[in-house]
Structures are given as structure tokens and as C-alpha cells.
């Protein structure tokens, strides 16, 4: 998976603490050149070749090294995130995709998603992105209520959001996702129910519902913590979440991750690769990656972060081909911790097969089936461990963050 990060926004939203920049003028040609160059460098480093080994994707590695990950032999998905990547020109998106296709094998029909804001998603722009190779869009609707949109500091109205989604669905039928936020200060359960109903009427086959997280340093958090806006009560948030899950499942959606719902198999391949702890390459300012740098003889999965600030990042890419600011080799334990933390967010959980690929020696059963915290959590009905793997129950998923410290603590002691 490849994640190119477009770091710019036209305006910072009140709740957002991402690594984004609002600048008067973006030197798009320079950013494009750097995205292309860094993508090429990192693809080479990860040794994703155009060449596909004979005998299937696992062909030449009959017996993968015990602690290593499967090699990436192709780019299975690209996700343009940000920032607001829909502010970039289709030309830039196309250039990055060409670079990827030039450096690595990209299977036909590989998912290529673009995050888009309703305010920069005219039908003609979307058509341009489609022509450049994008085949899926994720639209940041956030709310279908104008007062809420204003509170969130969004640039668009509910009507514009509707139009954007409808336009996108025509261009990307079955491949349009929308984001919604809940748990806004002052939002009632009824208001949320109405939002949800409206969203169901609008949406395609994929929907992400995020509980608003108050992040330090954001305008919205300052207002809530300063007492200017009410903090949503914990119990209300729980009720909102339960209601949303129930409604969406009743509407035929699969609740395939904590905040993500899909029907007709329209899951996000790209995002699943995070939750399945596959390899991914982050390109662009502040982008994160996890891969084995085989191109320089590496054998271990590394956590990598690119330089945060765009100008500094560009300087580094121009001088050395990439802007990797930090890289850390992940130990087997750290890899398993990530696998557990991410995998349990999904409805499939951590499968036996996937766990075994990371940890051929220590089985899931051995790690979590013996008496201990994990077993107690299974007995209390939060977790299930069976031949399929380890996963959360319906109730367990909502309190996953209370389960994980126990599981990690147990894993550390095995």
C-alpha cells in the first residue's frame, strides 16, 4: 500500500490536529516533483518490483524468515490523504500514480482512493481525478447540518456536501465513501439519529462514522475544556455509537472496523492493509510507513516517519531523494503488539493465518488461550478466540481500548 500525503488545506478545521498547512500559495510543481521522487526512492528501497514472481505471489519464498513480513510484490492500493488532496491538481495525482506504476507492479483494478472535501469537489475536478487514475473517493461530509458544519469550521454547507456526494456517486458508483462525525458539543441523540438517517439516504456503499476526538491544541478542544462548549457525556457517546452500529447493520452494512461500515463488499482495501499490519509506504510530509527496506539489505520491518514540515521535507527530498526523518526497527514483540492493536479493530480480528505469519513459534492459542487476563476477558464476553483467530465480540469492540492494555501486558510476559 502506498500513502501519498498532500499537506495543504485551504482552512484549518476547528477539530483538526493533523500535520496540515494553510499557505497563501503552494508551489505545486515542486511538491509534485518531490512526491514523485520520494515515491520512487521508497519503492526502490522496499523492493516492490514491476516483475511479478512466477508461481503466485508467495512463489520464491517457500519458507519466509521466521520474524519477517511477507514481501511486498505489488502495490495493492494507493490512498491520497492529507491535508486536502482534492486541492491538488489531477495532474499531480496522475504524476504520482505514473511514478508508482513506473517503479512497481500495480495490479489492474488496484484501489486508488482520493480524500476529497465537498468544497473542492466539482464534478469536473472529480472527472479529472478519475482520468488520472483515481477509482475511489472518500468525501469528508462530516455533518449534514449547517450549524454543526460551522462549529466544525468546515467550508461547505450541507447542501454542497449532498451535491458533492451525488456527483461523486455518478463518477465512482459503488466506490464513494463518506465520513461523518458524532459526539459534537451539544449534539443530542435525536439530532444524531436524524443525521444518520439523512446520511443513509445519501450514501453509497461505504461510510465512516467517527466519534469526535478533542485533540490538544485545537480550537474546538480549547472551547470545550475552557467551558465555552459542553463536553458530550460519556454515556451519550456510548448510546450514539450503539445506535449508529445498529442502524447501519440493519441497513445491510457490515461493521468491518470500529468506525467503518461497508456493504456489497465495498471495504477499503487500503485501510484494511493498516489493520492487517501489511506493509505500507508513506510519501509526503509527516507520512508514516511500515515496511522492510530490502533495497538496502534490510530484513526487519521498520516504522518510518517522513519530515513533518513541507519546505524542510522538500529540501531533503531534493538533496537525498527522500525525507525520511526517523526509522526504527520493530521487534517481533512490537510487531505483534501492532498486529493485535490494529487487527482487533476489525470484525475479522487477528486471524490464525495472519498471526502465524508474524509469529510462527508462538500461536494465538498459546499466547491468549492460557489462564490469564485474555482468558478472563473471553469469559467475560469481550473477546472470542477460536479456530478463526482472536477477535472482539460486539460488546468488546466498543471497549477495545480497555482490553488492549491487558492483552499487551499478557503478551509481554509470554
Amino acid at each position, binding site marked *: 500500500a502506498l500513502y501519498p500525503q498532500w499537506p495543504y488545506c485551504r482552512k484549518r478545521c476547528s477539530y483538526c490536529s493533523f500535520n496540515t498547512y494553510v499557505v497563501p500559495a503552494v508551489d505545486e510543481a515542486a511538491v509534485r516533483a518531490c512526491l514523485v521522487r520520494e515515491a520512487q526512492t521508497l519503492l526502490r528501497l522496499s523492493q516492490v518490483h514491476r516483475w511479478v514472481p512466477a508461481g503466485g505471489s508467495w512463489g520464491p519464498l517457500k519458507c519466509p524468515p521466521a520474524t519477517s513480513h511477507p514481501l511486498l510484490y505489488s502495490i495493492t492500493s494507493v490512498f491520497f490523504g492529507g491535508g486536502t488532496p482534492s486541492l491538488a491538481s489531477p495532474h499531480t495525482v496522475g504524476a504520482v500514480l505514473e511514478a508508482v506504476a513506473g517503479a512497481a507492479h500495480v495490479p489492474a483494478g488496484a484501489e486508488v482512493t482520493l480524500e476529497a472535501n465537498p468544497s473542492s469537489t466539482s464534478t469536473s475536478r472529480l472527472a479529472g481525478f478519475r482520468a488520472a487514475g483515481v477509482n475511489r473517493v472518500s468525501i469528508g461530509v462530516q455533518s449534514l447540518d449547517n450549524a454543526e458544519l460551522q462549529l466544525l469550521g468546515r467550508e461547505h454547507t450541507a447542501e454542497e456536501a449532498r451535491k458533492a456526494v451525488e456527483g461523486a456517486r455518478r463518477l465512482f458508483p459503488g466506490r464513494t465513501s463518506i465520513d461523518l462525525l458524532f459526539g459534537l458539543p451539544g449534539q443530542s441523540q435525536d439530532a444524531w439519529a436524524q443525521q444518520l438517517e439523512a446520511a443513509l439516504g445519501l450514501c453509497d456503499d461505504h461510510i465512516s462514522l467517527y466519534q469526535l476526538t478533542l485533540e490538544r491544541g485545537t480550537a474546538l478542544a480549547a472551547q470545550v475544556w475552557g467551558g465555552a462548549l459542553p463536553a458530550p457525556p*460519556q454515556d451519550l457517546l456510548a448510546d450514539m455509537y*450503539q445506535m449508529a452500529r445498529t442502524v447501519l447493520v440493519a441497513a445491510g452494512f457490515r461493521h468491518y472496523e470500529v468506525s467503518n461500515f461497508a456493504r456489497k463488499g465495498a471495504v477499503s482495501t487500503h485501510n484494511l492493509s493498516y*489493520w492487517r499490519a501489511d506493509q505500507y509506504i508513506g510519501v509526503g510530509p509527516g507520512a*508514516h510507513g511500515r515496511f522492510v527496506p530490502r533495497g538496502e539489505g534490510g530484513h526487519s520491518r521498520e516504522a518510518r516517519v517522513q519530515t513533518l514540515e513541507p519546505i524542510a521535507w522538500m529540501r531533503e527530498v531534493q538533496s537525498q531523494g527522500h525525507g525520511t526523518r526517523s526509522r526504527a526497527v520493530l521487534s517481533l514483540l512490537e510487531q505483534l503488539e501492532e498486529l493485535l*492493536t490494529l487487527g482487533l479493530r476489525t470484525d475479522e480480528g487477528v486471524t490464525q493465518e495472519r498471526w502465524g505469519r508474524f509469529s510462527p513459534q508462538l500461536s494465538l492459542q498459546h499466547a491468549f488461550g492460557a489462564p490469564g487476563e485474555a482468558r478472563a476477558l473471553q469469559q*467475560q464476553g469481550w473477546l472470542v478466540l477460536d479456530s478463526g483467530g482472536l477477535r472482539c465480540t460486539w460488546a468488546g469492540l466498543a471497549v*477495545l481500548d480497555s482490553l488492549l492494555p491487558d492483552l*499487551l501486558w499478557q503478551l509481554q510476559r509470554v
Partner: protein
Amino acid sequence: LAVCRAAVRWGALLPSPCPAAAPLRWPAWLPAACERRYSSRGKEQLDMSTYPVESIRNFSIIAHVDHGKSTLADRLLEITGTISKTDRNKQVLDKLQVERERGITVKAQSASLFYNHEGINYLLNLIDTPGHVDFSYEVSRSLSACQGVILVVDANEGIQAQTVANFYLAFEAQLSIIPVINKIDLKNADPERVEKQIEKLFDIPTDECIRISAKQGTNVEKVLQKVIEKIPPPQCSTADPLKALVFDSTFDHYRGVIANVALFGGEIAKGHKIVSAHTKKRYEVNEVGILTPNEQPTHKLYAGQVGYLIAGMKEVTEAQIGDTLFLYKRPVEPLPGFKSAKPMVFAGMYPVDQTEYNNLRSALERLTLNDSSVTVHRDSSLALGAGWRLGFLGLLHMEVFNQRLEQEYNMSVILTAPTVPYKAVLSSKKLIKEHGKDQITIINPAQFPDKLSVSEYLEPTVLGTIVTPHEYIGKIITLCQDRRAVQKDMLYIDENRVMLKYLFPLNEIVVDFYDALKSLSSGYASFDYEDAGYQPADLIKMDILLNGNPVEELATIIHNDKAYAAGKLLCERLKETIPRQLFEIAIQAAIGKKIIARETLKAYRKNVVAKCYGGDITRRMKLLKRQAEGKRLMRKIGNVEVPRDAFIRVLKRETDK
């Protein structure tokens, strides 16, 4: 905590800054580099026989904090040529960081001053005393080596609580009292008012007060003259057998214990064999001398004189304050009033991080080398780990001890809220047999005997003195009543200042009384207290339960009247500090089987982070790992996990502003 920032007495132990310096050595704990500010009286050993008893005056300076005791001492040292006169002489006798920061004397320093008055050479021994009641015993021993005191009162602030306490200590010891009104150079100085207060409260005629400015040196010479005129020489004779009072001691890594002594009879020199009346141990004297204020060896010390001796004592407990030393085979009647240190305030001390346990232990050992009044018992708490239960003479003692650990040993500790020693009069024959006595002291709530086997519980009390501008009386009386205090006296010491006396249960003032008093009087009220024995009290043991399971380290002994409020507060604080869990948690305070307070911590119904994509994972893992690591430090009460932090937040002493 600032309960009367006064002179208190115990020493630190730091590696000597100049280990090879000899023979005139600085006390090992002097933080200054080897900078000599004192004029040396020559390398020759002094012959002290030229100072007969008639030309000796032994005295102390006593004062409320910040009234100028140390500044006056600086001037006296300068005038007598004991130290050279420079403007760097500020708190010359106060060497420790904590002393200079707080303006208190932690380690009292005595000094011998030589002064010629009307053609006679006098030896004036300034015996520094700890002024605070935490150290009333030490003060009384120091004062017993004196025949008079200089009572310093601030011309602006007037008589304060500690002035009163100090006066009565001196008065009861039948010492001559020289009242001095200091800081007359200040703009708001009102010496007349203060003179009237002194007359009203202490019955000293106004014309006996000396108005001075120690800072500017005004009239300080007159104070010296009054010392010679008004204070009688000590009544003792060199012809008598040796009788020496130990009134202080310090520990030096290289030379062992240095005991400060006052001779009540006889003489002492190197080579003499001496015996401690308390321990019966025998020693040979290696060195005697006077303090100027650093140690200066002399040939001998004679009756009436004050100085130090080194005699191969290895621990400060061998030179206990109040002990009497005499010549081997020449026993004397020991000086009256000797007592062993009796801790009045206890607190648990734990390293913030258990890996620091050994370092903290070594720091404690070194700090207590110089302070035998701190009692140390190993203790361990399931929540806080291995630590100690320390006994202190009082609050200031505890505070300064803790501060010195932090400043001089760079130790960061968890100090639990202080408790007091309760007593129980047993009625159960079985328990009496078990303890071998019918009255026991209870320091740990786990030892609290059941009401059925006890005829009476007792709690320690103190007599508190409060001096305040009268506009705060109402609030202060309410505060005292809230603290179960009984008014004993109320007296206007002038038109707008009142002195109140209250009998307090000690436990009511150990936590935050002084802060409350200061804040409701805008800082104007002063407070001091003295031990007032035990009184019967309706005490109970309050347990804290989490889902029905008692939490051992949160059990407290408390007065029945206070149980409900304290239980409620504790439950509320726990509710704030225990993280929500997967099930509901009942937090209850109970007396026996009776629940007196309850808070409910609801179960988590949703606790999962909304977004976890590529860029969120690293941050997420960091937090989770910290939480998983935290599991190691979790204390499990039944199925409830209580993080160590929660215990610390609930048990920790609230630091004073």
C-alpha cells in the same frame, strides 16, 4: 509548610568540601567551598583558663521567624571581631540551602565571642537554639546551658505566636530576659506599640526594651553591654567534678561525633576518660575546643564555658541531647530533664520509583546520622512498594527533613499524609497479656484494637497559640471549632491584636491547619503550639472498600465526628482518580459493617479510539505500551485495578502553598 520558620536543630551530612583541611576544620556539612570568612584566632591553642566564671556570659537569641535573630547574631559576631565585617555576612550561622531559602536556622551554630567591656575581657557564649516547638525539648536543653536570653521582636509585626512560646520557655527556665525591638529603621516601625505589648503580655517595663536595627547596626553594642550587665555568670566551679551537658551534636565522617557541651562543673582536656550518664559508655577525649563559630581547639574547657569535644563516639545516638558527661570513676548526679526524642508526627516515605529504593535508603541513613530524633521503621505498602514509616518531632521537622532529602540528596519521594500516635487503654485481659501492658500506642491503623476490647482511646493534643489582627477573630474561631479545638484563653495584646489559646487534637493541625489559618488571615495570623498530653477521644477505624473489598492502605483512624465528612471526601477523591473499568465499581467508606459514604464509578460503555490509520499507529502504540506497563504497578483490590498514581494522589500529603 511554614509552621513558624524558626531555628531547628539537626545537621546534615555531606562529604566535606575540603577533606584534608586540618587542624581547623569546617564542619563537614558546610556547603560553601573552603572559603574562610571567619578571622582565625591563630594556630596556637587558646588557654581558656584566662576566662574565669565571673567573666563568662551564656545566652541565646530567641525570636519569631524573620524577626531578625540571624541578622543580630551576624552583627554580634562582627562587633566582637569573631568574623570580619563585610556586607556578605548574611545569616552567617545558617549554612544550608534550606536555611537560606526559608530564613530559618536548621542547624544551630554556637559561637564564643570575646569582648572587652570596661577593661575586663569577657567570654560571651552565644548558644543558638531552635525556636520552634517541634524542638522544644532541644530548646529547653540549650536554654539550660544559658543564664539569659535576648528576646527579639519585630518593631513592625510585634509579638507573634512564636514570641510567646519562646518567652515562656525562657521564663520557666528562670532566665534573665533582655527584650530587643528590632527593625526600627523600617518605615512602619512602631516600637512604642511593641513595647506596650511586651509590657502587657510579659510584664516587662517598657523602658527595659532596647530599640535596635540589627541590619544597620544601630544600638547593637548596647545589647552586648546589657548581656554583660543583666545576665548573671554561670554558678559553678572548676573545683567541682566534671559535669558536662550535651546540648547538641553533629556527625563528621572523618572525626565521628562532635558534641557541643556546656560545663556545669570541673574541667575537661584531651586524654580525659569520660562516661555518658545515659549510655554508661566510656570514651577518651581526643580534642576539646570552642566554636568561633568553626571549631578551634583549646587546651582545656573550664566550668561555665561552652565548646565542643570529640571523644571517639561513632553515632549521634551516643551523644544524645540532654545527656550528662562525667569523668570515669567520678560519677555525678546527671543534669535534670533528660528525655529521649519522642516522635509526634508519622508519615510514610516511599521512593517515587522503586528502583531508587537503595539510593533513598542510603540518603536516609546519612541524613539521620545527624538527627537521632527521626525514627525510621521499614514499612511496605502493597500500593506504594517498599518504604519507611518515619517519626518526626513535628511538622516543621518533617518538612525540613523532606526538603533536605530533595535538595541535598536529590531524592524525590512520596510522603504520605502525616498521622499522629494514638493510644488505647485496653480492657481485654487477653490483649493486655499479649502486649504486656494495658495501654498501647497505635501508629498503624492495622493495629487499631476493636472497641469491645478497649476501655478508652486517647489522642495527642497540643496547646496552640495564635496571634492575629482582631478583624480575623471570627473566622479563626470558626476554623478552630471545626478542628475540634477548645478555647483556653483570649487576650488583647494591644488595641488591635489578639492572642488566642486553643487546645487542639494534634491530628487536626497536622495536615493543613496552618495553610487554612494563613489564607483566612491574609497571612497575618501566626501560630505555634506545644505538647499538651493525651485526652480521651471517640476514635474509630474507617475502612475504604472497593466493590466490597477493603483497601488496606486507605484505612484510617479518625474521630467519630469527622468520619462522615472524611469518608465522603476520600470516596470522591478515589472516584476522580480510579480510571473507569469494564464493570461498575462501588467505592465505599465503612465503619465496621456500617457504610457511611458511597460513590459509584460507572463501567466503561465505550472506550475505543475512533481513528487508527497509518499515521496514528505510532502514537497509539506508545500510549498502549505505557498503559500495559502500568499494569505492572496496578494494585488489584478484588477485580478492581487501582493505579499507583491513584494511591499517591489520595495518600499524598497536600503540599503547602
